[in-house]
């Protein structure tokens, strides 16, 4: 460095007179393009199968165009409505027009379903009223509506429609954290008996932490064995660790059902040895305990492999050095060996935790009532309730949570210290 600053600032050129920098840039660009061409297939694959669907999901969680597109006149007419009293005739007329059109192209059901997510019962109010309104040639509509269903005389119904009058809104995200808009447009908690997602997020977090801790507790000693034992023993151990990896996830989960169920192997042994009585069989499955046990076993390799690969690189001479410097075995282990396994501990824990937090199939099969996690509810909204917007918002929160965690990890430990072996 010192020498180069002493050089006079003369622009260097190549033998044929081109500026050296341009020439260098050209050579490097060619190499870069070649390198880029090699990753293009993967990039396209990732874009189509990974980034694009995630983008779609996030988009869907805030993009809510149904009401705006299908009740355009109503939304326009409601623009100046102050929300204190039921709106006047022009709004009813606009809604009637939208409904007639909706009846014609069979789109009114979509609006009704969407609104019903916000306010139960609105679906039948709209479809029934629409059926009646379709027969009306002309106004006044207000009377007819009020006559058709008393829900049209309630401010809440109109507030619900107006609230969805934005193509982009955060209604689904609010719902994902057990909150909603009241008629005045304030964010309030859901009624207590419908508060579900925050506790489930909490439980998901807690169970994932528990699984991570169990994996670490079980995985650390085995990884240490793997890294320090002679090849013959460590190979055997490695096979035992990896064996579950080569078995289908469903097989593993169902074999846990066989072992843990109340008439299962483990309970039979407990009864047989007299530890518990015949009527005191322990409920080990279809609850949180079963889910944590099965997930710990399934995710264990994801803890062991990074730990092992890091421990393998820790020279045994560190422990010896520490001992020769006067540290007893345990102190040497704790002060010198353990800190060096941190990248592996971090990588393993992060991997297990991220996998656990989005785990679906195992909780679905052995989770019973108390072992369900957030992914099971996302699946519910994807498959049964068809509330894809809410499913997307729940997924979005999960994604943000994981990214946050990753950021935190990067801040505390540094991602460059992450070692997956």
């Amino acid at each position, binding site marked *: 460095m010192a020498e180069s600053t002493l050089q006079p600032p003369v622009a260097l050129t190549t033998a044929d007179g081109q500026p050296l920098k341009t020439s260098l840039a050209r050579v490097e660009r060619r190499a870069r393009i070649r390198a880029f061409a090699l990753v293009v297939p993967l990039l396209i694959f990732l874009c189509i199968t990974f980034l694009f669907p995630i983008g779609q999901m996030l988009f869907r969680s805030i993009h809510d165009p149904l009401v705006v597109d299908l009740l355009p006149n109503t939304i326009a007419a409601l623009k100046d409505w102050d929300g204190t009293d039921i709106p006047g005739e022009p709004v009813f007329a606009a809604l009637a027009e939208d409904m007639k059109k909706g009846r014609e192209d069979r789109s009114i059901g979509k609006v009704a379903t969407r609104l019903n997510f916000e306010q139960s019962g609105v679906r039948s109010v709209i479809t029934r009223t629409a059926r009646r309104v379709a027969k009306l040639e002309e106004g006044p509509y207000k009377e007819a509506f009020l006559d058709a269903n008393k829900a049209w005389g309630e401010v809440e119904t109109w507030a619900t429609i107006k609230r969805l009058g934005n193509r982009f809104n955060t209604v689904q995200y609010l719902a994902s954290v057990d909150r909603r808009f009241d008629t005045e447009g304030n964010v309030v908690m859901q009624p207590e008996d419908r508060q579900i997602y925050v506790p489930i997020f909490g439980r998901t977090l807690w169970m994932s932490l528990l699984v991570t801790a169990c994996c670490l507790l079980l995985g650390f000693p085995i990884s240490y064995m793997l890294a320090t034992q002679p090849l013959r023993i460590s190979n055997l151990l490695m096979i035992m660790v990896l064996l579950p990896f080569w078995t289908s996830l469903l097989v593993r989960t169902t074999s846990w059902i066989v072992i843990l169920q109340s008439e299962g192997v483990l309970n039979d042994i407990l009864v047989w040895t007299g530890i518990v009585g015949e009527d005191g069989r322990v409920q080990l499955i279809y609850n949180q305990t079963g889910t944590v046990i099965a997930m710990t076993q399934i995710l264990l390799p994801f803890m062991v492999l990074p730990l092992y690969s890091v421990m393998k690189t820790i*020279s045994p*001479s*560190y422990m*010896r*050095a*520490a*001992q*020769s*410097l*006067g*540290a*007893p*075995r345990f*102190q*040497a282990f704790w*002060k*010198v060996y353990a*800190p*060096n396994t*941190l990248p592996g501990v971090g990588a393993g824990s992060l991997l297990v935790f991220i996998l656990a937090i989005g785990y679906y199939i195992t909780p679905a099969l052995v989770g019973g009532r108390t072992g369900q996690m957030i992914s099971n509810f996302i699946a519910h909204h994807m498959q049964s309730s068809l509330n894809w917007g809410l499913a997307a918002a729940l997924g979005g929160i999960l994604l943000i949570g994981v990214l946050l965690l990753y950021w935190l990890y990067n801040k505390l430990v540094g991602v460059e210290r992450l070692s997956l072996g």
Partner: protein
Amino acid sequence: MAISNENLVEFTEVQKSYDGETLVVKDLNLSIARGEFLTMLGPSGSGKTTTLMMLAGFESPTHGDVKLDGRTLNNVPPHKRDIGMVFQNYALFPHMSVYENLAFPLQVRKMSKSEVETKVKKALDMVQLGGFGTRRPSQLSGGQQQRVALARALVFQPTLVLMDEPLGALDKQLREHMQLEIKHIHESLGVTVVYVTHDQSEALTMSNRIAVFNDGIIQQLASPPDLYERPENAFVAQFIGENNKLMGKVQHTNGENACTVVLDSGDEVQALPVNIAGAGSATLLSLRPERVTIGPEAGSLPNIFDAEVQELIYLGDHIRTRVKVCGHDDFVVKVPNAQAHAALREGAAVKLGWSIEDCRALDA
């Protein structure tokens, strides 16, 4: 720094086996004096590192005693032996700074903070790394890491320091520099050093005494000049320095200081009997290349033979000359690059001569 007569370390009839079938160390008896710099030299697998590890406490002897300062070490765990150690790849703790690495042995000894600080500073100054305390080991060059490892092994003032091929990873120039530095530190501190290496020039440079290991046995324990000048068996002669071998049979001994050996080519050589079984036994004559005279005057030396120059290799300070003599065509002579010796050519016929003392009759 004088070496005391008192023994600090004593190995008595030590044997070591890993698998219960073969002995890695066979019946080792070795005393190391306080303040001595002793090197264990040998090829890999010769048992030198195992011996060092038994002394450090990471391996336990299968049989026999290891004593340090009169105390039997067999059941003393490594951390209570108070032995400093420098490892092959330094074994600096990567998650600690240089300062923390040096403070580690002091902290586990529960020294006060100020005491730790003074000692670490002194140790760092000793290896000329005063300003490097906050660096991580990975930010240091190989030579600097080596010095930190050295400082760490010395900072808690152990009576004995073990070094397990500490310079193996350095380039030649740095290695030679560090050899001298370690030698000077040893001299100024008076600490006892047991040093393991397979590099003979390193051993020759630094040691008070060298124990040459082979096949689990100390082949010879001697000072560097003795080892080079007076190897006691064929292995040592071969292992230390360059060596010409002439195979033959002892015809008869002429008193203590001479014997006549008939080579396989039929030539008769006068040699110094060192390690022979007596008349009629096979022997290997060992002759250093620099102790051979080219073109001696007739009768000036007891052994003079005709030879033919096969190859000349120019090495600057001397010319390595391969000649054919007494039926051996791999006989090497080092010819000093002095003005008088400029005339050799390949294929030339010359005369070679050597004295009785320089031609050692060893076990075959």
